[in-house]
């Protein structure tokens, strides 16, 4: 069974509907396998991948997905798992918020929080993972605020271009995966 089916808890009837787009089901699972299970450790470590995934699932308030991804974090570091849960609680917000280029859309600007990482959390996570969680918080909740400075923040913390691409894919893929899960649950309940 694919991970979207497991996380959504959807039954065979929903699986049958999704089978009308079989290639999408297969490629979504392949993206998961590549980003979480078999990913290249040189661009992003296994702990980094699962910690970011758990943090993103927690920001989406998806308890089942958060348990799944936190399990992977705990296999490597129980301390990191605790910090991820605490920071996700502190950083929880309703998105998307953010600002547009100054002009006619400015009336739609919505303010929202940035993630604060205290010194205790930073010590437990290290520079790279601290920067990754900060970036994930931005990308999940206020992507329209994106600016070159976001990528410079990652570079300063030790992320090279392939690492930034993989981190961006991981967070963005999870935003998709968690919405498939939410949508299929709604369909199952309707």
């Amino acid at each position, binding site marked *: 069974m694919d991970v979207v089916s497991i996380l959504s808890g959807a039954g065979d009837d929903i699986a049958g509907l999704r089978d*009308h787009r079989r290639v999408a089901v297969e*490629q979504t699972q392949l993206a998961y396998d590549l980003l979480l299970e078999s990913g290249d450790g040189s661009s992003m470590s296994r702990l980094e991948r699962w910690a970011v995934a758990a943090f993103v699932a927690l920001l989406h308030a998806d308890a089942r997905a958060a348990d799944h991804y936190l399990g992977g974090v705990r296999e490597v570091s129980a301390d990191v798992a605790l910090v991820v849960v605490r920071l996700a609680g502190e950083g929880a917000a*309703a998105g998307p918020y953010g600002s547009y280029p100054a002009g006619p859309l400015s009336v739609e600007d919505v303010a929202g929080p940035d993630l604060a990482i205290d010194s205790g959390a930073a010590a437990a996570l290290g520079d790279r993972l601290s920067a990754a969680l900060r970036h994930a918080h931005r990308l*999940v909740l206020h*992507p329209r605020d994106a600016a070159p400075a976001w990528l410079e923040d990652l570079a300063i913390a030790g992320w090279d271009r392939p690492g930034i691409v993989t981190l961006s894919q991981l967070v963005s893929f999870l935003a998709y995966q968690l919405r498939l899960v939410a949508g299929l649950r709604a369909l199952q309940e309707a």
Partner: protein
Amino acid sequence: MSRPRRFTRATLDWLPWLEPLAESELTERHYDGLVQRPRAKNPYFRLLSDDPDVLGARTRADLEIFHNTVDGLPRAERELAATTASRVNGCIYCASVHSAFTSHYSKRADDVDRLLADGVTADLGERWNAVVEASAALTATPPAIGPHHIARLRAAGLDDVAIVDVINAAGFFAWANRLMLSLGEPELPESADE
């Protein structure tokens, strides 16, 4: 050149914030991730080809979700779901591409322009309103889609295969919007007049 300050159906450029691989550096593995060789000309896809296998999975899922129209939701309304997600997230570039597709496939340019100008509360008729409302709810963080959205889609005439298409199409743009917004920015072409 200048940055667009409003949503538009016009063709925009997109400039990366990181210098991507040059075309001359691409290997067969990169081309496999690009799926369609002409995509090597595009700096967005060349940048994503740093992780070629993930790009390949992304692209093949994308093509299936939007181009497999043997049944389910018509292409126009899959593009409407993509446009809605992009409008909510604030991806002016993605919204330009997919609003142009929505308009092309539906021949409803005026309704598409209302969605771009007024946002997801624009009144576009019950069937489109149902697709837009469900897509917008799915795009929120945390996702806010519930059984009442599904019921409204069914009442508007969508079967459950079409409803999965709404979920796939709007959901996919949670992925696409975040990449386009965070790795570069849109520009108005030299010839454009906002």
